[in-house]
C-alpha cells in the first residue's frame, strides 16, 4: 500500500538546513494499523503530511499503491486526497458555520457527487459513527468526542483506502477517546489502512506496528503489544496511560 524509500524532508531556515526527516524507509501493507510515535519535533507530523500528500519530500521516493507520488501534479494529488485518503485531525477542523451533515458532505461536494447522493451518503456516514440524530447540529453545539466522530464520518465518506489520524484523541477526555479509538479500530478491522500519529501509548498499543521516530529518523520499530517496553519515550506521559498500555 505504502512504500517510502530513502525519504528526506529538509527545511532551510536562516541559511541553515534542518532535516525534519532523514532517510526514512517504510513499508505499510494494505489493511495494516501502524502507529507513529516519537517526542515532539521528531518529524511525526511531517511524515504524516507527506503520507497524506499534503506535503512533498525533499528527496527519496513515496509510492502509494505502487504509484510514485512525485510524478503527480497538484490536481492529481487533490484527487488522491479526495478518493484514497481520509484525514482525522487532533483539532477536528470542522467548519463552524456548517452543520454536521454539511461538514461531512464537503469531500463529496468537491468530488462532484450529486446532491441527493451526497445527502444519502453523509447520513449513512453519520449513522455509522452513532450520531444519526445530530445531523442539523453545528460544531459549537457538539462535545469534543462528537466533533471527532463527525470528523471521522467526514474522513470515511469517500470510502478511502487509507485513514490518517493525527493525535485523534489528543483533545478528548478518556471516555470520548475510547469511543473514537473503537471507531477507528473498527474501520481498520473492516479493511481500511490506518496510520495514527500519537504520543499516547494506550493508543499506540492498539496498532499492529509502532514506528518510533527520533530526530527525524526511525529509531525503533516494535509490535503494538510491545509498546510498553518503550519506557524511555514516555518520560512525559502520565503513569496511568503507561499502566493502561501495559495491561
Amino acid at each position, binding site marked *: 500500500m505504502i512504500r517510502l524509500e530513502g525519504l528526506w524532508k529538509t527545511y532551510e531556515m536562516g541559511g541553515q538546513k534542518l532535516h525534519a526527516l532523514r532517510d526514512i524507509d517504510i513499508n505499510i501493507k494494505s489493511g495494516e494499523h501502524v502507529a507513529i510515535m516519537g517526542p515532539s519535533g521528531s518529524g511525526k507530523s511531517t511524515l504524516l503530511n507527506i503520507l497524506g500528500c499534503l*506535503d512533498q519530500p525533499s528527496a527519496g521516493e513515496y509510492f502509494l499503491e505502487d504509484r510514485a507520488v512525485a510524478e503527480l501534479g497538484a490536481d492529481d494529488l*487533490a*484527487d488522491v486526497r479526495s478518493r484514497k485518503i481520509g484525514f482525522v485531525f487532533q483539532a477536528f477542523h470542522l467548519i463552524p458555520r456548517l452543520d454536521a451533515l454539511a461538514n461531512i458532505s*464537503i469531500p463529496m*461536494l*468537491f468530488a*462532484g457527487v450529486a446532491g441527493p447522493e451526497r445527502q444519502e451518503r453523509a447520513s449513512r456516514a453519520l449513522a455509522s459513527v452513532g450520531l444519526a440524530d445530530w445531523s442539523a447540529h453545528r460544531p459549537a453545539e457538539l462535545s469534543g468526542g462528537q466533533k471527532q466522530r463527525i470528523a471521522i464520518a467526514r474522513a470515511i465518506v469517500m470510502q478511502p483506502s487509507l485513514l490518517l489520524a493525527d493525535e485523534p484523541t489528543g483533545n478528548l477526555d478518556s471516555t470520548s477517546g475510547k469511543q473514537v479509538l473503537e471507531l477507528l479500530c473498527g474501520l481498520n478491522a473492516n479493511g481500511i489502512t490506518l496510520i495514527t500519529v500519537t504520543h499516547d501509548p494506550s493508543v499506540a498499543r492498539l496498532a499492529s506496528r509502532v514506528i518510533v521516530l527520533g530526530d527525524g529518523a526511525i529509531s525503533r520499530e516494535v509490535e503494538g503489544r510491545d509498546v510498553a517496553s518503550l519506557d524511555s519515550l514516555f518520560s512525559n506521559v502520565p503513569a496511568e496511560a503507561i499502566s493502561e498500555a501495559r495491561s
Partner: protein
Amino acid sequence: MKATDVVQFAANSLLQHRRRTLLSLLGVAMGATAVVFLTGLGDGARTFVLGEFKAIGSNLVIVMPGKTETTGMFPGFGGVPNDLTLDDANALRRRLRGIRRVIPMTSASDVVSHRQHRRRVTIIGTTRDFFRAQGLRAERGSLLPDAEFGRAAPVAVIGSKVARELFQERDPIGKVIRIGDARVRVIGVLTDRGTQMGMHVDDTVFAPVASVMQIFNRNSLFRILIEVNAHADADAVKQQIIAVIIDRHDEEDVTCVTQAAVLESLGGILRTLTLAIGGVGAISLAVAGIGIMNVMLVSVSERTSEIGLLKALGAKGNQVLAVFLTEAALLSTTGGLLGLAIGTSLLELLTVVYPKVPVSTPMWAMASTLALAMITGPMFGVMPAWRAMRMEPVTALSGS
C-alpha cells in the same frame, strides 16, 4: 463541483459574516445607485433639451449672416461684410423650391412699459409663421397679422410673464405698451411655454419684423428660418439658399445650419455629458470594488485554516479559486441589483417631485451598470482568490 454547489457554499460563507457582507453590499449598492441616478439625470436632461428643440420642428434650415472664415467670429455676431436683409428673405421666398415658410427674425433687448410698470425684455421681430413653426399659441387675442415682410404695424404679441408683470390681473388685449419710444398695441398673449430654443418665450415681446427694425433702426436680420416641406429636402434647400445668396451678395457670406444637424450635434454632446457623469458614478463603483477586495483579503486571511482543510479534503486549486471568486461576484451582483433598485426608486421619486423633468435611466445604462457591478467583484476579488488558490495545504492547515 457543480456551479450551484459553488454558489451555495459561497453564499453560506457570506451569510456567516452578515455585518461585513452587508457593508460590502452597501458599498457596491451606493456605487451602482450613483451610476443609475446620474445617468438617469443626464439622459433626462438630454431628452428634455432635445424635446425642446424637436418641438420647433426638425424641418428647419437656419440662415445666419456671416461665415466663420469671413468674420473670424461665430456666425451671427456682427462684423459681416453684407447684411442679411428683408430683401434677401423675400428673394429666398420667391426662388426656393420645396419650402413651406420663410421666417425673417430680428432681435433686440429693451425696456417695455405700461403706465408705471416697466420691464427689460427680449423683443423679437418676426412674422406670424414664426408662431406656426414653433407651435406657439395665443392664450388670449390673436397672433401677429399675415402681412408682407416689409409692412410695419404698431402691434405686439406678448409672453405670459410680460403680461403678468405689466398688467397684473387686467386684460392686456387692446392696451398700448411702449417699446423704447414707440407705442404698440397688444393684440395677443401667448400661452405659458417656458424656455424654447434658448429663448425665454414667456418673457419676450413679439412684433412685426419691419416694426422692430424701424424701432431699433436696424438693417440686418438676426436669422432667417426656412421650413422645408420634408426633412429629406433640407440639404437640397441649403444648396439653393447658398446659390441665391451668392447671386445677391456675390459671395457666400451666410451660414446655413439644418435643425437636424443641430439636434444631432447637441444630442452627441449631451450623450457624452451623460456618459461623463455616469463615469463619475462608475468611479464610486470601482471604489466599492476595492472595498470588496479588502473584505475578500480579510476573508482569505481569516479562513486560511479552512482553505487548508478544503485542500486536504480534495479541493483542487481552481475549485478554491471558484469559491472565492463566486463570493466576490455574489457581493457585487447583489449590491448592483440593490443599487439599481435604489437608483430607479430615487429617479421615480424625482419625477414625482419634478414632473416636468423626464428622468429615466435608459436600458443600456441599467444593463451596463449591472454588468459593471458583476465584473467589479470578480475583478477585484481575483487577487485574494488567487492567493487562496496558491496556498500550500499543509501551511494553510496550520493557519499560518
